[in-house]
């Protein structure tokens, strides 16, 4: 009988295994997370309960991210959100072994040259948070309400292209959703197709 015991250890490992991540859905509680920012400081989503939170998946190497940063569109949207007391968290889920992975210091320097003003920029190198949200592209945008419920998931705007000249005729979905949410109205466009580069997730996830 005592000889069975080795298996107990094996079994404990199994109890924790085999769990697939559920994808976030609009109208449902947004997955909570704790990540470190570019200075290595811990940031939790729950730190910002009581405020609207925008999540932006970012990767400077992606031409679609460049479209919205070089044109000033993303920094402007960030400033307008921050001015309305909205928290903006940029998340980088690029795997460390991906060719366009940026170290935190490089990423901080790049953001500075673009006049970006996120509340914090978070490193998610194992991709767990990105997978929990079902983030597919850079950029991929989310809006979370003060109670932690997901209000919007999708693209930054309505014209999926790499041309910066399309920005002026496009509807900025994040700006629109924020305006509606802050005015106490339901979000009229709660989901859209995010467009951009595939997120290069780490294999293990």
């Amino acid at each position: 009988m005592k000889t069975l015991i080795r298996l107990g250890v094996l079994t404990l490992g199994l109890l924790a295994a085999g769990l697939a991540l559920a994808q976030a859905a609009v109208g449902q509680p947004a997955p909570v997370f704790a990540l470190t920012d570019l200075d290595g400081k811990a940031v939790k989503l729950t730190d910002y309960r009581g405020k609207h939170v925008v999540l932006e998946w970012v990767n400077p190497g992606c031409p679609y991210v460049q479209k919205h940063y070089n044109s000033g569109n993303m920094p402007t949207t960030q400033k307008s959100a921050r001015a309305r007391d909205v928290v903006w968290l940029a998340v980088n889920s690029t795997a460390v072994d991906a060719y366009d992975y940026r170290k935190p210091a490089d990423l901080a320097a790049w953001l500075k040259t673009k006049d970006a003003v996120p509340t914090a920029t978070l490193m998610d190198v194992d991709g767990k948070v990105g997978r929990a949200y079902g983030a597919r592209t850079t950029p991929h945008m989310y809006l979370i309400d003060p109670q932690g419920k997901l209000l919007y998931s999708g693209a930054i705007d309505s014209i999926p292209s790499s041309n910066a000249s399309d920005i002026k005729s496009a509807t900025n979905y994040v700006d629109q959703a924020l305006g509606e949410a802050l005015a106490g109205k339901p979000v009229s466009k709660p989901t859209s197709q995010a467009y951009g580069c595939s997120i290069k997730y780490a294999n293990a996830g």
Partner: protein
Amino acid sequence: MPKLLRLLASFLCALPGLAAAQGAVVETAEVRAELVAHAPQGIGPGRQVWLGLALRHQPHWHTYWRNPGDSGLPTKLRWTLPPHVSAAEIEWPTPVRLPVGPLVNYGYVGSLLLPVPLTLGTGFAGASLDVRLHAEWLVCKEVCIPQSGEFVLNVPADRPSIAHAQAFARARESMPHTPTGATASARVDAQVLAIEVNGLPPSWHGRALAFFAEDAGVVDHAGRIEQRWDGARLSIRVPLSAQRSESPATMRAVLVAPGERAGIALGFAVNGAWPSIVQATPAPATTALPAADATSWGLALVLAFGGGMLLNLMPCVFPVLSLKVLALAAHAGDRRWLAAGAFAYSAGVVLSFVLLAAALLVLRSAGMQLGWGFQLQSPPFVTALVLLFTVIGLNLLGVFEFGAVLPGRLVAHRAHHPLVDHALTGLLAVAVAAPCTAPFMGVAIGVALTRPAFEAIAVFAALGAGMAAPLLALGLWPAFARRLPRPGAWMVHFRRSMAFPMFATVVWLVWVLGQQVGLDAAAALLGFLVALAFAASVFGAQGLGRAARLGWRAVAVVVLAVALAWAAPALFWATPANPGANAAPSTGWQAWSSEAVAGARADGRPVFVDFTAAWCVTCQYNKRTTLSDAQLLAEFDAKRVLLLRADWTRQDARITQELARLGRSGVPVYAVFPPGGMDTAPPRLLSEILSVAEVREAIRDWPSHTPPAQGTAGARTVP
């Protein structure tokens, strides 16, 4: 360094506005694009004329289909054409699936041609057709580079242009077509798009087809697609995207058989209401939990304790436990040793339950839609349990001893720490008890998960305490232990006989796996178990010489490796079986959805919902007894009760939410909604061990509408 150069090159290419080519060819480091024409009869009104963009990708680079999948963008063509000439849409060739980590894209690799048919009006009268094209494409490997090109082409009017006839012919061959007689219909079933296809070519029957939705923003491109052939009819279940942005009334999709260049394109109307894009948050536990209000925390503790005690009798736990008891009884004389062993075991049990509860609470707070029994929704976990129970069973049979397999140091270490040994037995007992959720535990755990973390963990600790209680009592009062039979030769036989409940558990778990991933996977696992048994017998063999022992062991390792390689594809990459399979065969039962409940209630019909899972023993018992009772079914029929079955065998967020709304977190749950519209009382929940009498009592006052079918036994039983 080469990496850096490549990166630099990528960025240079990515600069907007590629050098405008004054010709028909644009070439980048990743792709060569050429504007080509096909006009076998020359150019003129009414003639057949095609233009096309021929793309040749460098190895590993790809561009996208009309629906690019999880990321990417389709190639866009903007034409500048002479008067009286118009261009149609691209006739997209059949795409391929391009997985990128957890994402899936639809697109093209290698060489392809995107043909566009032209229409030439009667007014057209040029000596040549002068065409300008602005094309934009996104070409990706790991990196994505948006590129564009300006193309100019003059096609002479007076002679045929057939230089690219072959490329156009190949493009036509790989274009999805719709054979006559092929039809499809679809309905939305919770978070799944269920499509039925008829009239596919006989050579396709029974094969696993690739599925491509033409509409973007609807399905989960990387989700597991389930297919079932029923003769010539194919049923496909495609999971919807959790972040769906479109709710089309009609859709188009392309199916492709393995090895075929051309797919079959199907258009279909989507029946049934799309679930709301904004998924309602389940109401807070405090307002919508009648069961939680009725069941106080104290009662939950008592129920958990009782449920834990019952766990000892479950067929998978009893063998482990009874042998533990006998091992302790052998030391009945040494009172202190007995008590210490029993305490160590109890600590192991309680701690394991607390850890399991903590894991569940942490995962739930991270937003996962999980409930009790969540481990068994995972096929790899079920597979691992099958292997564990088989090995335990073989060990009990005496096929091999762990001491013969493990390094000597480990064995010695164990002998020095008997208390650690006892605690680990407790852990093992909890692990093997996991599949057998006892009655009474459902209520207690449901309550626990709606309480603050401390109270929840206390309920799980009570569950552990209940499970450990009988053995602890034995350890503390040696009078009990002295009543046990004396150790002797009979113990060997007893130990052997205890292997068989283990094997029975294996049979059941293989059945569960069959429900989850299909018959092939179950057969593959059984095949692997044979190899495992062989290896165990070799490693347990006594009295062999050193050379013979090493030889046999080498053979066993090879057999295991070959069996694993053979079984792995079916186990891990199988097309899963239809999840409704567990619910489907019983007549009269339909798959549960909250819309179905709401619809029936709006019509004033009563509803009975069976929340069940293949891995839930109590559920299966009730299903085969009470819920198969002919008289009861006839009574249901007479009262026009809508019978719905919510199958939780695999993870299903909607069912988890509905259970939470009912104040439960595991199965079985039986909910009865009385007739008479939406505003009536919340559903009544029946007990987990369901009796015919209880169900009949619950529905006694409901009116009978139609007389039951002739010859049904239940006709006389309607009050």
